């Protein structure tokens, strides 16, 4: 019994930390899912996260003397979604209308994003600093009533953020949209066989725009959701999280529930990498921090190696749609 009381706080700590890392992965990977299932590969997720995080945190930085708490966070979330969507437009235009190489325009966005974030931050902030500082007034120490539930309370409803619940909401909405609505059916058709979809009157271009822009909005939100619990300043990077989200998407086989499980797994790996010093057992091991930091990336490689052999990407993903090819 003494052991369980000793281990329990550590488990609670790890699970609470895990949400901070898993939820943004989940949101961004679901975004990628909408894009790829519509037939557009979006490797710009990383860059879109940077832009979403930057614009919304810059907003928080400017407004935090007049506003605080959940109202400000909601405003920032809207900003992140909007800016993410706007930043994705060039990629959508290039890959849908111009039928250009989707990897290349995605790479262009990935290169532009941190440069834009640093340029704007250094131009508009005092002393030309590139870090955008913010005060974290968004943490919920305990959700009323729900936080007092034994067992589940501390794991889910203490030391948390509304963004965690937003992540769950997005998961449910995404699954329902994809499988239970007309739009979802059309979206999947455009990613598998756009010619067939077109032949029954679905506008492939519109659906692909919708999918890509949804991915932009979600990736933007994911950027903000990633930075808020884990830092107090933003330094124009989300440390490869957008790419990890792509791996989560592949590992989750482009299906919402599997993506959720994959996000939990990678979130846990990332938690171990960054919060190992809070776990007595791991801290006492003679493993240096640089090695811990490699864990998420190594496990990603291994996980992909084990699952990619029979990986089934949406068939038309990454293939530009050409009406004349019908």
């Amino acid at each position: 019994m003494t052991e369980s009381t000793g281990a329990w706080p550590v488990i609670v700590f790890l699970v609470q930390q895990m949400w901070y890392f898993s939820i943004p992965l989940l949101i961004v990977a679901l975004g990628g899912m909408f894009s790829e299932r519509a037939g557009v590969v979006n490797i710009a997720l990383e860059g879109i996260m940077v832009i979403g995080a930057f614009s919304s945190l810059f907003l928080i930085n400017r407004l935090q003397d007049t506003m605080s708490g959940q109202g400000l966070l909601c405003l920032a979330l809207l900003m992140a979604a909007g800016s993410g969507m706007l930043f994705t437009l060039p990629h959508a235009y290039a890959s849908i209308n111009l039928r250009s190489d989707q990897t290349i325009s995605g790479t262009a966005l990935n290169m532009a994003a941190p440069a834009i974030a640093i340029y704007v931050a250094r131009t508009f902030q005092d002393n030309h600093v590139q870090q955008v500082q913010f005060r974290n007034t968004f943490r919920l120490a305990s959700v009323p009533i729900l936080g007092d539930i034994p067992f589940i309370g501390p794991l889910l409803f203490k030391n948390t953020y509304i963004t965690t619940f937003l992540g769950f909401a997005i998961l449910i909405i995404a699954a329902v949209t994809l499988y239970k609505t007309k739009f979802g059916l059309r979206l999947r058709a455009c990613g598998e066989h756009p010619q067939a979809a077109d032949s029954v009157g679905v506008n492939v271009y519109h659906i692909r725009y919708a999918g890509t822009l949804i991915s932009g909005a979600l990736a933007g939100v994911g950027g903000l959701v990633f930075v808020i619990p884990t830092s107090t300043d933003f330094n124009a990077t989300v440390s490869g999280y957008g790419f990890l989200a792509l791996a989560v998407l592949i590992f989750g086989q482009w299906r919402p529930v599997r993506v959720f499980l994959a996000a939990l797994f990678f979130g846990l790996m990332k938690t171990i990498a960054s919060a190992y010093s809070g776990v007595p057992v791991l801290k006492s091991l003679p493993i240096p921090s640089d090695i811990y930091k490699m864990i998420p990336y190594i496990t990603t490689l291994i996980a992909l190696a084990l699952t990619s052999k029979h990986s089934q990407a949406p068939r038309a993903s990454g293939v530009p749609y050409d009406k004349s090819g019908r």
Partner: protein
Amino acid sequence: MTNRKRVNVFGAGFTSALSSIIAILVGLAVGFVILLATNPAQAVRGVGIIASGGFNGGMKGVGQALYYATPLILTGLSVGFCFKTGLFNIGAPGQLIVGAFAGIWVGANASWIPSPLLWLAALLAAALAGALWGAIPGLFKAMLNVHEVIACIMCNYIGMYAVNYLIKNSNAYDPLKNQTIDMTRAAIPKAGLDKIFYSLKGRFMDASSVNGGIYIALALAVVMYIILNKTVFGYELKACGLNRYASKYAGIQEKRSILLSLTIAGSLSGIAGGLMYLAPAGGLHINVVETLSAQGFNGIPVALLGLSNPIGIIFSALFVAHIDQGGYYLQRLEYMPQIIDIIIAVIIYFSAFALLMRQAIGAIQSRLNSRSAKRREGLADAQEASKHD
């Protein structure tokens, strides 16, 4: 009539180069707009500084541009070589840093090798380590069907953290500056370039960091050109890139091509790291920071802009290094140097349209062709008629 040789008004090479030049002009135009939005008063001067690049700093500035172009040529070759095989090598940052560390480690430890040869041994180590780091995603792609983009990106981060760890636990670490030590014995010779690219500070010759590495980079570009265009091996790789199923049908071992292509690309990026950091005093050092190498990533725009042609890559690397130096001098006007990265991103974005532009140029071309063909036809008819008279 239909079999008559098509008259190419512009020439194929020119058509391709034109799409890159258009992308560059659009990029610079976007840069100008950003400068205008930031501080309209200085915008025109700002664009002038970007366009004159290294020349802002006299001969030393030009030398610095050449020094920065050296790794870019190689990472550009690395990415471009993979493009030719139909692979996207976004792993150059990892391959570069792993190669760089191997080079530095040999430079600091292999004291039994005589000094004039040490840099060569270090460079070989860099090439081998880079090749290993390229072979990993190659194996994952060829054997396990893991997408090379994801595998390369994971290897970038693993390589970066591994090198950070290894530097801190090696004798090549300078803890005060949190970077690698000076390479004195293993530095690449200046090859007389310090006598050309310097600026005078009083009576002191302030030489730039450019060194013999630029010759190595240029020579390797020529070697890659020969491999791609004049050998069976290169032909097979390109065939895989154009149509993997057709080349498989023709008996080319596709998996072997993938693995070899990424391994060679890795060694090129590794050499890039070696040439960058095995520089004489005043050159770069590996900083122990958690940032991926920009020179590695910039291989992508260099390769795209050079249309993956090794000779084209030389010019595009020189261009990127040139405007990068322009960004450095742009700070005189209180503009932020990151504008150069934005310009480069815009250039890549528009080079993604290259196909579209080439189609448009092709359309103009064929219209001109058909017009001139008609004229010639008319001329021939007239001659025919006059003969009969």
